[in-house]
């Protein structure tokens, strides 16, 4: 992944940003980050958490929303291609198991005329 030089604020620059797959498709938000190496060693972002119970760390409303939804999808940080105003991924949403809500809804919408 490439970012501009200097310090980088994960909270402002990555968290809650749009995820875009290889083909330019919107496929969720960076709902939370999983870090490793917090107890000794270099702290490092290991996974991006998307959807579902990834919201449980995000305040009272987040806990409520998380309780109502399923498991988060974990995307390894190594899949990130570039961070700009969006987080661009190296592969397609389908390969990373993202955007499945849109896929399900698409099956429904395709039955409507002119869709």
């Amino acid at each position, binding site marked *: 992944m490439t970012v501009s030089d200097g310090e980088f604020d994960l909270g*402002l*620059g990555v*968290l*809650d*940003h*749009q*995820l875009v797959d290889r083909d330019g*498709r*919107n*496929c*969720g*938000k960076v*709902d939370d980050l999983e870090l490793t190496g917090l107890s000794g060693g270099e702290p490092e972002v290991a996974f991006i958490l998307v959807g579902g119970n990834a*919201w449980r760390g*995000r*305040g*009272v*409303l*987040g806990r409520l*929303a998380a309780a109502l939804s399923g498991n988060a999808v974990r995307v390894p940080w190594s899949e990130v291609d570039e961070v700009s*105003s969006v987080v661009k991924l190296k592969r397609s949403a389908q390969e990373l198991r993202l*955007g499945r*809500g*849109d896929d399900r*809804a*698409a099956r*429904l*919408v*395709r039955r*409507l005329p*002119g*869709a």
Partner: protein
Amino acid sequence: MKQFLQIALGILSAIGGFVDIGDLVFNTQAGATFGFELLWVVVIGVIGIIVYSEMCGRVAAASKRPVFDLVRERVGFGAGLSTLIASEVVNLLTCAAEIGGVAIVLQLLSGLPYRFLILLGVIGLVVISWVLPFEWLERLFGYVGLCLLVFAVAAIKVHPHWGGVAHGFVPGVSSGNRLVYMYFVVGLLGAALTPYEVYFYSSGAVEDAWGLKDLRINKITSIIGYGLGAFLSFSLMIVAAVLFLPRGIDPQFLGTPALGAEAALGKIGLVLALVGILFAVGGAAIETSFSGAYNLAQFFGWQWGKRHRPSGAPRFALSWLVMFVLAAGIVMTGYDPVKITEYSVIFSVVALPLTFLPILLVANDPAYMGSNRNSRFSNVIGIVYFVLILAIAVSAIPLMILTNGGQG
């Protein structure tokens, strides 16, 4: 030449799209209650919507990010979700009010039953939104909405006391009931500064694939389009002040403003006014239902946009369909659309600060904006308006309760 035409067309649709049911209701009631005394409030409201629309259009052109992306990125998940819920309630109430307006106008034109016309109106709006591309939607409703210019002609024809009109542009405190006056100040500002206009404008800029070359169009469209749109608000208030105030008419019915056009210009005035209102509120119904879908999709990171086929942005398409269905359900209860309008405008004021703050922050962020950051001038006005918005957000609901919704 092509760019000139594009700018002219953008301005025309901004004028036609400026007025919605909130402006119709609050400007007419303000004129009928306080004469010309509240004209200055419209000026303040319009400058505010110009400043923030220009800002979010510029952010959309420079960073390709629409408003609700920014809300989430800047205020985080929790506060963002609260803003989302508040904005969706307001979008839904506003959409319901606009659909009620469509049905009332159709009823005045056809005499058919109200609930049947709600159904007919919603089906018509859904089919039009499903079939027409984004650009055509904007233009169809914007251009035909220009029939509302009949109110500008009517405002001259009723021969207002121009000295009194001029005096109305000077801010002042009324000799009448102060609390009711303050309620109308808040209501008129809320009607001019509706949050959905900002959501729709910025998402529309992304839909139209605006880039840096469009910054000039953004500036001209927002300043001249909304600026001229304000003349429609002035006209509504002036007509109501001349025709309704002396006769003690309290315009609690959406058809009342059209009667003002009829009194001044006869039958043709009435028909033009009704057609103008029909397309103004119909267009606003589409904008509010789409805003509901834009906000949801942008908060959760779904595919969105009218530029995709419905199956290419399926949750977005389902969201605006559901908005229409829920909104129609609300008006079907028979609750008075004018009352729904008042509630929606007053609640929208409460949702404004959390919508405007992220725009102001991001418009100053070089990571998003590069060299197109806010000028000092935009910042000063932006901050002044943000403080004003905070003040009216805090006072809106207490004033509505204390004045019994402006009834005194």
